[in-house]
């Protein structure tokens, strides 16, 4: 079956193609060359339409223990957004913490074809994969979380060499079926178990005498040396703390040129100026990002309304719990690995702090020069549910809309920002870079995020509506692996995406200390910790896609 999309305006930043009229041919789930004999089975007229590859959300909490705690905790939030069963779709619900099925449907309806769970606790990876397995249409994957786990900290306290740490990282990525490596409040979740209430970049964990800076260096080096394409994914120290911009600037310096992705940077860009002792650090942070080419960021934009924050950072979530809205929250310590905290939150446009958070996120988007190194996220659901992306895109692409919104916010916060004076508007090419080509390149997805011959036919077709929120809310067509899943903004077919992983090589000698660790201290056997390929394939609906390592990756 050969399908031709005729006459669309193609935006494909990976190939430098910006609004060029081209035909696209699809066969067997892939983008192919025009057939030499000219024979096609199906032609879809997309003249005048904008064509991009399917969008990729590189940081979205869609599966795993803390998300499921959030779901169970928030019946009142679901009750306002119930989804009826149809011939095609399972029923579901949820706005801040939607059910897995609803999550897949909603992403596809917005033209997204992949989403990545950024905080997979290794011991909870099995659950994260179960939930992602039940998330239809989109491709998925996860970043395994290390950095507060006792096994790593023991290695570091014993000053083991980098090769041993690389081995451990590779072993963890392999057996949790992960695509990348994440660190959350490096060492801080562990320190909280020893009753430390904060941990600055150079502060030592009282038991291990190890600092976050050292953890970041070790893990970033491991990822780099193993050739894992996605740089270390870092949720830094001091999330949400006024003045944390200095920590963030130190973190950028401290990594000494190694690749590093700083996630939800908005939550780490706060100063202490002004009457409220809370100010924007976005300009300084953006300047540092622009200068340090080894750094990438996603924003974690906040948008106003009810949501829920779900994080591995139970140290900071515990500190933030008094702000819970509604007033209920969960913190957990988990398996000598990490923890989690789930705190519902309502961002209010008439709150000085929340309004400024909104501004800081947008300032960051607009002041970071290179759309290949900044990614569009709300840290779903922490800053806002992912369903608000079309609104966020409009804020970036439409200055007058942005300034109209700005003028309704807390008046003192308006005085604390230069946002109104920023003229930049994102182009469609910038949006495609940020949400497609850049994201695929950042994650090392070799055949996604572009429209070249050989790419997976994950394709989104939009009407070039001047209201960008309308445009990005409701694509004309979405193709997933060559199959039309959305037409006129409506789901017409349910498919099941693949799970992207990396399999870096490790030396089996690492299993000797691990075996001893599991037997002595753990309540799960090492063999039962490992997630088999069969578990991902499961009932036959799942599949694994092993992404290549970088050239020169070694152990």
């Amino acid at each position: 079956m050969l399908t031709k999309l005729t006459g669309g305006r193609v935006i494909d930043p990976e190939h430098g193609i910006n609004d060029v009229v081209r035909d696209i041919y699809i066969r067997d789930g892939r983008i192919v060359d025009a057939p030499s004999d000219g024979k096609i089975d199906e032609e879809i007229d997309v003249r005048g339409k904008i064509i991009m590859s399917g969008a990729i959300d590189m940081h979205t909490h869609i599966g795993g223990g803390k998300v499921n705690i959030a779901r169970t905790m928030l019946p009142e939030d679901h009750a306002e957004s119930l989804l009826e069963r149809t011939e095609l779709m399972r029923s579901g619900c949820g706005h801040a913490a939607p059910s897995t099925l609803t999550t897949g449907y909603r992403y596809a309806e917005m033209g997204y074809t992949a989403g990545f769970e950024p905080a997979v606790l290794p011991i909870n990876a099995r659950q994260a994969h179960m939930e992602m397995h039940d998330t239809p249409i989109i491709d998925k994957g996860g970043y395994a979380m290390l950095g507060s786990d006792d096994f790593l900290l023991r290695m570091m306290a014993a000053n083991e060499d980098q090769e041993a740490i690389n081995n451990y990282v590779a072993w963890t990525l392999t057996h949790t079926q992960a695509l990348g490596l994440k660190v959350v409040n490096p060492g801080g979740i562990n320190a909280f178990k020893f009753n430390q209430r904060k941990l600055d970049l150079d502060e030592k964990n009282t038991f291990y005498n190890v600092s976050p800076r050292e953890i970041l260096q070790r893990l970033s080096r491991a990822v780099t040396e193993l050739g894992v394409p996605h740089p270390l994914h870092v949720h830094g120290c001091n999330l949400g703390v006024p003045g944390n911009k200095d920590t963030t600037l130190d973190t950028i310096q401290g990594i000494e040129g190694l690749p590093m992705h700083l996630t939800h940077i908005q939550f780490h860009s706060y100063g202490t100026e002004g009457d409220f002792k809370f100010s924007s650090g976005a300009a300084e942070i953006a300047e540092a990002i622009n200068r340090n080419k080894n750094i990438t960021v996603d924003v974690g934009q906040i948008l106003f309304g009810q949501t829920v924050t779900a994080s591995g950072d139970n140290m900071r979530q515990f500190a933030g719990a008094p702000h819970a809205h509604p007033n209920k929250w969960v913190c957990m310590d988990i398996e000598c690995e990490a923890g989690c905290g789930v705190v519902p939150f309502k961002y209010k446009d008439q709150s000085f702090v929340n309004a400024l958070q909104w501004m800081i996120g947008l300032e960051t988007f607009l002041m970071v020069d290179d759309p290949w190194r900044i990614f569009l996220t709300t840290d779903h659901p922490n800053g806002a549910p992912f369903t608000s992306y079309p609104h966020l895109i409009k804020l970036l692409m439409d200055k007058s809309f942005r300034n109209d919104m700005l003028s309704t916010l807390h008046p003192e916060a308006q005085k604390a920002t230069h946002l109104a004076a920023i003229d930049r508007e994102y182009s469609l090419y910038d949006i495609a870079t940020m949400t497609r080509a850049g994201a695929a390149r950042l994650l090392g997805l070799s055949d996604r995020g572009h429209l070249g011959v050989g790419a997976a036919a994950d394709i989104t077709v939009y009407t070039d509506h001047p209201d960008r929120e309308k445009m990005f809310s409701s694509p004309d067509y979405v193709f997933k692996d060559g199959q039309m899943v959305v037409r006129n903004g409506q789901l017409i077919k349910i498919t099941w995406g693949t799970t992207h992983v990396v399999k870096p090589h490790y030396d089996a000698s690492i299993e000797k200390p691990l075996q001893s660790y599991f037997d002595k201290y753990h309540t799960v056997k090492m063999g039962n910790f490992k997630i088999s390929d069969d578990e991902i394939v499961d009932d036959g609906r799942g599949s694994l896609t092993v992404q290549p390592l970088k050239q020169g990756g070694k152990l």
Partner: protein
Amino acid sequence: MTDKQSDGIYHDVASPFCGIASDDLVVEVNGNTVTVKENGDPVTRHGFETPLTDLSPRIKGQEVSLEEAVSHIVALLKNSKQPLIGGMGTDLNGARAAMALADISRATIDSQFSDAAFRNILVLQDSGYMTTTLTEVRNRVDLLLVVGSDIESAYPRFYERILWPQESMFGQEIESREIIYLGKKPSGDASTSPAGRKAEVIECDDADLPEVMSVLRALVNGKKVQAESVGGIAAADLAGIAEKLKAARYSVITWSGSQLNYDHAEVTIQNICEMIKEINQTTRSNGLPLGGKEGDTTVNAVSSWQSGYPMRTSFSRNMPDYDPYMNRGQRMLDEGEVDLLLWVSSFNTDGTPPKTDATTIVLGRSGMTFEQEPEVFIPVGVPGIDHVGRTFRCDSAVSVPLKKLRDSGLPSTYEVLTAVEQAL
């Protein structure tokens, strides 16, 4: 994954029969006979060793093929005005299939363990909690407070595995661990330390626990208490516990939802959980709710991610509606609201359906006996014996793979329910 040796011995076998899901069992399989050789206990031995008897489905007591039984279930569901899927003793994929079936058949779904599970879930939904997991407890606990529960009767290996390991990761002297029972006294000596140190036991009746916990919480918060005794316990003894909780570096408070078996026990649990949050203002303390056997934790987890809600969710409006009171399965049966009960209980022959006038379908463990023969009975495989599976532990964070130990030929709950769903 299966560490089978030629002599039919399997190592590192996980047990779905107890909420702590010990996964270090050594099991011998000889034909269809399973024997726990090492690390067994009364709960796991009963779970693994219950013999296989029925192999054929029945309709009205007559043996039929699986296809006939499935067709009959399909017909019953098509004609049902209000089906209830109950029991829910199953694993991950059984739960997935039950959810899919509930959705398409507009059923209400509830589990046989919900009365206990909801004592915790209601707290989560009202005020939340701070909890920890088994490996953390094993390495960090310095004070264990057991509220209103006799742990070893339901979790025989809890102390051996969690409280009394050879060593802790952080150099703690294992013998220094202190255990206090508040409420029920333990039924045995599992809580006695390896060197013979006995737990402190401060008894009271279940009926007094709400008041006792309230006073303990008040004392933790430094409030003055006028009464000299509460529920037969000297206020000074409670003050002693409060001081210990505040002085401990990593206290753990544990309870079993099923053993706090009185009306509105969730309020007692809420008091425990709020007290834990308050202790955490200065030191570390966590809850450890025990429960979760035979798929209890699993089915609530799956239900939450697939529908947004835990058990006690109805699909009768073609979308999930959650109501922990209205959708309580037993209440619906008692009120005559249900015309068809589909009961799933694949782990335990004792997990039979409640007596009801509703037409009853049972997907049960082979060997189940009934006071009243159900309309349809399908003996299904036991996850972790007859087919592979996955089950969640009581602490929710951890799930373990279950092995296939024998070829009984019994279908899995997933296979049966999926066949029914496809036919609908």
